[in-house]
Every structure is written in structure tokens, then in C-alpha cells.
């Protein structure tokens, strides 16, 4: 089986956004995601996950390049200004292209 090229989009943002972001991802056509709890530092200061308001999540989505682009654009437009959020995109290989 040949590996197929896809994109891995990683979003690190405030835990309070979890519900909203998952609804957005669904609507933008992604088929799955993985979430881990995280803490960190960025423009908006230290978020050390000591309690609800300072906790981050780290969402990973494997999808095709078009969807990755669409999601990036959507997030930039809706969240970058008001929320702690960092996004990066990586090239990945998967075995089951139909899954993503």
C-alpha cells in the first residue's frame, strides 16, 4: 500500500474554546481529531493550566490540504484577534487516504 500525503494541523488554544472549535471543525468537513491537555506560553503570556481559565488544549487534525487551508483561514478570521491561539501545519503520510 502506497502512503498518501495529507496535512496535520495542530491548534494550541484556550481550553474554554474546546466545544466551539470542535463544532467548527465538524462544519468545515474534518473527519476526526485528537485532543491533549496542555500548558504553555505565547504572546498572551503564561498559561500554566493551574485552573480552568489558564488551561490550554492541543488539537490535532489530519486532513487534506484544502481542508487544512480552509480551517486555518477560518481560525485566523474568528479567533486570532481575541484568543490565545497558535496554529501550525505539517506534511504527513497516511495509509488510508479515504479516512481523512
Amino acid at each position, binding site marked *: 500500500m502506497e502512503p498518501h500525503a495529507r496535512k496535520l494541523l495542530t491548534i494550541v488554544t*484556550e481550553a*474554554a474554546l474546546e466545544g*466551539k472549535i470542535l463544532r467548527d471543525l465538524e462544519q468545515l468537513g474534518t473527519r476526526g481529531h485528537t485532543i491533549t491537555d496542555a500548558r504553555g506560553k505565547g504572546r498572551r*503570556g503564561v498559561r*500554566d*493550566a*493551574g*485552573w*480552568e*481559565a*489558564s*488551561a490550554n488544549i492541543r488539537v490535532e487534525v489530519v486532513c487534506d490540504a484544502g481542508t487544512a487551508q480552509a480551517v486555518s483561514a477560518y481560525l485566523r478570521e474568528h479567533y486570532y*484577534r*481575541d*484568543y490565545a491561539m497558535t496554529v501550525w501545519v505539517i506534511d504527513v503520510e497516511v495509509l488510508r487516504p479515504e479516512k481523512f
Partner: protein
Amino acid sequence: MLDPVILFFVLGIAAGLLRSELRLPAAVYELVTIVLLLAIGLKGGVELAKQPLGELLPQMVGVVAMGFLLALAAFPVLRLLGRLARVDAASIAAHYGSVSVGTYAVAVAYLGSRGVPFEEHMPLLLVLLEVPAILVGIVLARGVSRSTRWGSVMHEVFLGKGIVLLLGGLLIGWAAGPEGVVPLEPLFMDLFKGVLALFLLEMGLITAGQVGGLRRHGVFLGAFAIGMPLFSAVVGTGTAMLLGLSLGGTVVLATLAASASYIAVPAAMRISVPEANPTLSLAAALGITFPFNVLIGIPIYHAMATWVHG
């Protein structure tokens, strides 16, 4: 002398400021919060079982009105004196119009160790006070625009952890009645002060972490974070007198009025008024008002209540 539970708060602040590596795991903080919320709810519910809800209606209405009023009073001060952006002023006003369960628990412990009785249905008023200020804050920030999705705002507000556990506890306590909750008492009543001590230890650590935010936002916010609770306590004391509360009940209502939310309101504002800067409101509510109330405010409100009652 300071209540020992308060000393745990001081320990937490000290450890935080000294950059100790002490940290409570998030899961422990959540467990402790859940037990406190349920315990407060249960206790209030048991009391509700003893008296017709109808009789409490005046108090319920009065307290909701007070919540609206406090948020509305805070806004122009923040906007005009503080020259804060509209969204920030609205958000901070919502924090101060609403209440802090942690501060309530400390007031309960304070009155308990001094043997001052108070109306045991106070948790009902606590729940009622959480909500109105949130609505005021959103309307102040947004106007009554049709684009506000009130459905999801209401969902956010009423189904947040805090209200579900408080209200759930109230209903269970009310349904189970005084004898029903006896087997639950070892966890929810006997351990209450110990659990509150752990909670305040963690609150101290969190409070210490807000100091950075404070330094950046200057003198006005600091003054507001002490002046507003004092003003609110006066309003709370007046409301309590109007509603005919006992001495203890007056202290509790003044404390509730003086307290600023740091759980329900921040979460609601983050989703509904995202443009508001959360470090401003948290630095004020957690970094100054919470320690102020816990360390100094409650005794002041006690003195105030004694004066007006006496």
C-alpha cells in the same frame, strides 16, 4: 485571630510568590471544588425542605435585583473613571455583580467558628446571584443586538459546572431532607473545612500568579478592586436589612455582594464577550478582591452588620 483555613490561603500566596514548586494537580483542584459546591448546595437544600419556598420569594427577587444593580453600578465607574474599553468595563462589571463561591465558603467558616447563626437557605440566594450580572455584562458589551445568540449564552450560563453542582446539590438536599443527607455528612459536612483548606491553598497559589497581571494594569484597577467590594457590601447590608435578614444573614449577603466571580463569569465572558481582556478582570477579582475579602473584608462586613443590627 485568623481562621486556620485562611492560613492555608496565606501559605498558598507565600509559596506562589516565593516561586515554590508546590502545585496542586488540576484534578485535585476540581475534586475539591466539586465537593465544596455540592456541600454548599446540599446544606441549602436541606434547609429549603423545612420552609415553604413561597416565603423566600421576596428575598429571591430582592437579591436578583441587587445583582442587576451592582453590575450596572460598576460599569460607569469603570468606563468613565477608569477609561476602560466598553467591553472590558462590561466584563469587569459582570464579575463584580456576580458572586464567588469560595468567598461565600470562607464567610460560612468565619461565622461558624464565631458561633453566629445565619439563614441556612443562603445557597439558594448564592445561585440566584450568579446569573443576573452575566446578562447585564453581555448587554452592556453588545447592546441588545439580535446577533447575540441568547440560547447558547443561556446554555453556557446555566449549564456551567458551578450552577449545575450548586443547583443539583440544592435539589438533592431538598428532596432528601435532613435525615436523607445524614449518610452523606461525613464527606460533605465533616470534611468541609479540611476541603476548604485545600481549596484555599490552591487559591493562594493562583492568586499569587495574578500579581504580574496586576502590576501591568495599574492604580485604578487596584483601587476599584478594593473600593467596589466595600461599596457592594454596603448595598448588600442595606438589602439584607430591607429583607429582614438576621445578623449572620446580613454578613453573608454583604459578603456575597462584595465578592467577585472568578469561575462562572470568566468562562461566560470568554465565550460571549471575547474582545474583553481576561487578565484585567482576573487580576482584579482574583488578585485583589478575593484576598481582600477573605483577609480583611469579612471582618469589616461583620462589624458593619453588627453596627446596623445593634
